[in-house]
């Protein structure tokens, strides 16, 4: 079973997928069409796992939305993946987020397992070639600057 902790993770073990190819998947969106990760090859993809019970997740998604506005024209794509036991709450939470990027639903937690999600929110930066380059477990405003640096690096490639 996956254990979700909304609190900041202590010294995090190295992420198993770092430097590896991001596994492909397709998920239905809360609003909008089904999406497949590999259809976004060539763009920098930020994948952010959220849950409806997770406090900082809303803030994380909002921060990502801001970065999307700035960097979209440079080839940035942001995808949110909702991991929830309660499908209804998940949809409600998604509907309530003021973001312009797709919020995907992973009710079976298949994708969360694929990506070894062990904390929420968890955000991955995937480069244009489909490789997982950076991972952020948890969110606070200080990680914004680091995230933007990493993002620019990937966009510059």
């Amino acid at each position, binding site marked *: 079973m996956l254990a979700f902790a909304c609190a900041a993770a202590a010294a995090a073990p190295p992420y198993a997928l770092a430097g590896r190819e991001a596994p492909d998947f397709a998920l239905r969106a809360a609003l909008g069409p089904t999406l497949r990760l590999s259809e976004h*090859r060539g763009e920098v993809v930020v994948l952010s796992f959220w849950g409806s019970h997770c406090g900082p997740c809303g803030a994380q998604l909002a921060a990502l939305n801001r970065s999307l506005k700035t960097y979209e*024209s*440079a080839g940035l794509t942001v995808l949110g993946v909702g991991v929830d036991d309660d499908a209804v709450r998940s949809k409600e939470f998604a509907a309530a987020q003021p973001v312009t990027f797709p919020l995907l639903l992973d009710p079976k937690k298949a994708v969360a397992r694929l990506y070894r999600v062990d904390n929420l929110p968890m955000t991955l930066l995937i480069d244009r070639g489909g490789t997982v380059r950076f991972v952020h477990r948890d969110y606070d405003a200080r990680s914004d600057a680091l995230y933007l640096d990493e993002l620019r690096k990937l966009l510059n490639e």
Partner: protein
Amino acid sequence: MRKGLILLGLAAALAAGTVLARQPPEKLPATRIRDLHYGDVLFYFYQEDDFEAITRLNAYEHWGLLPHHEAESQLLLGGLYLSLGLHNEAGARFETLLTPTVPTGVRNRAWFYLAKIWYARGYLDKAEHAIRQVQGALPPELDAEKQHLFANILMRQGRFDEAVQLLLHWKGPLDWMAYAQFNLGVALVREGKLAEADPFLTQVGTLKTTRAELLALKDRANLALGFAYLQSNQPAKAKPVLERVRLNGPYSNKALLGAGWAEAALGDYSQALSPWMELRNRNLLDAAVQESYLSVPYAFGKLNASAQAAEYYESAVKSFDDESAKLDEAIGRIRSGHMLDALLTSEKDTHYGWFWQLTTLPDAPESRYLYAVLAGHDFQEGLKNYRDLAYMGRTLDRWGDSIEAFGDMVDTREKAYAQRLPRADALLASDSLTDKQHRRDEMTSRLNTIESGAEVAALGSPQEREQWAQIQKLEAALAGASDNEENAALRDRLRLVKGVLYFRLNAAFKGRLWQERRTVRDLDAALAEAQIRWIRVEKARKSAPTSTGDFAQRIASLRQRIDALQARLASVREKQNGYLADLAVRELEAQKDRLATYQIQARYALASMYDRAANPPEGKP
């Protein structure tokens, strides 16, 4: 009165012949999918995943899985190679379709694409020959493109009359015709045949359309015609034409400049100021705007407003200085590999990716530099190559990982075989199967004998058989005995006992025989299965060492090729990068040169003015 001499750069890039339209793969007579794997290729083609489509098409061809779609595959593959820029490959594919056995529709298309390829490589004769091979009509879109291509071929050879004829007899969709007319008009202008060019450019210039690309073409046509008239000293004709150019389109700046010159040529400098002042307020990075920085004071000079003229000249010098410095910085950064940082630094901290990843340019003033660079045909081609190579590199990376896995798999298999082979060999060497088959055969023939001889005793239970044997022994013993009363009684009793036993044996015989036969049948089934397995083991054993050996070899050689290609990819991408950077630098340097020229003229004009002001002339110099 000096006239502005404006030579118009009419480098009308003729619509490239190398671009493959994203057309559906040839709706040939039967597009019914008759080979599932052809449908699989289309699944990727329709998603514009060309590389995947090519890979699968080649692989399925290799395995012979596309027997019903041979012609279509060649056509599709040719088109895909063409879109990758692999002209030779594409040509080879199309050429296989030129035999009479191939349906006309397919052959026509092959000729058409070949024409495009040859045209792109500069073989005009061959291109024309190919076009003439097309019999009958292609589907309307392709046909229009064909006519357009033909027109281009004629124009490139200077055969304008024929091109004109072609246009007059145009059939089909008008979009391509508009391009052909534009190209012809521009070519005629270059030849100095303005009067003949006019009707064509005017037709394009007065097109009724709302489509973005046609609106742009319209502007271009009007611009070209307007400037051609300016150049041939017909400003009155130039004016209305230039007025047709959109005020806020990509060509509005040039049009404003031209409009000003038309007025100036007609002697009305104050009228000229109107478009020029508007222009001067626009972005200095645009060449037309730069020129307006000079033409405005020029006009003021003509209107004898010296103070204002001087002021504007000074301002021009200052602006050009600033701009030149910025260009220098940008060039420096490009040369040191930091192309983008300089171009996009502004108050906001906006660092973007390589600008060639951008689909729309950011809204920063410096990004105006980039438009000109991005617009060039060479740059676009180079960019496409860069992207293709990057994509290919990533694909090979993924294969690199997979092939490690394959290697492991084959190793494991080899080990497994190493363990199992001795067992298999032992089994195959033993005669156990044939042995069992012999025994089965023996059983069957024994049963047959029993049945035909009605040997009821043979199927008796062990007890019964023992009894029967005893009886037979007694019978034999009694046979030779004397015929006394005792013996007679014994014989009788024996006969009775035998009778009873025989009766029992006989009654049970049929049932028992049936049972035995059934047992043999079951044995048969088991033997048959064993036989099949035996064959499989034999087969596997025969192929075992070679198949893993083969795979191991293939994997090793593919690994090498992957490594080698990765190295080449890296090196060529590097070079491509350098080439693109060079193009960008060249463009910026050209801009710098232009600025420098303008600067000199501004300074010179200023100097002259001050000179005249300081030393009013006695008479005309």
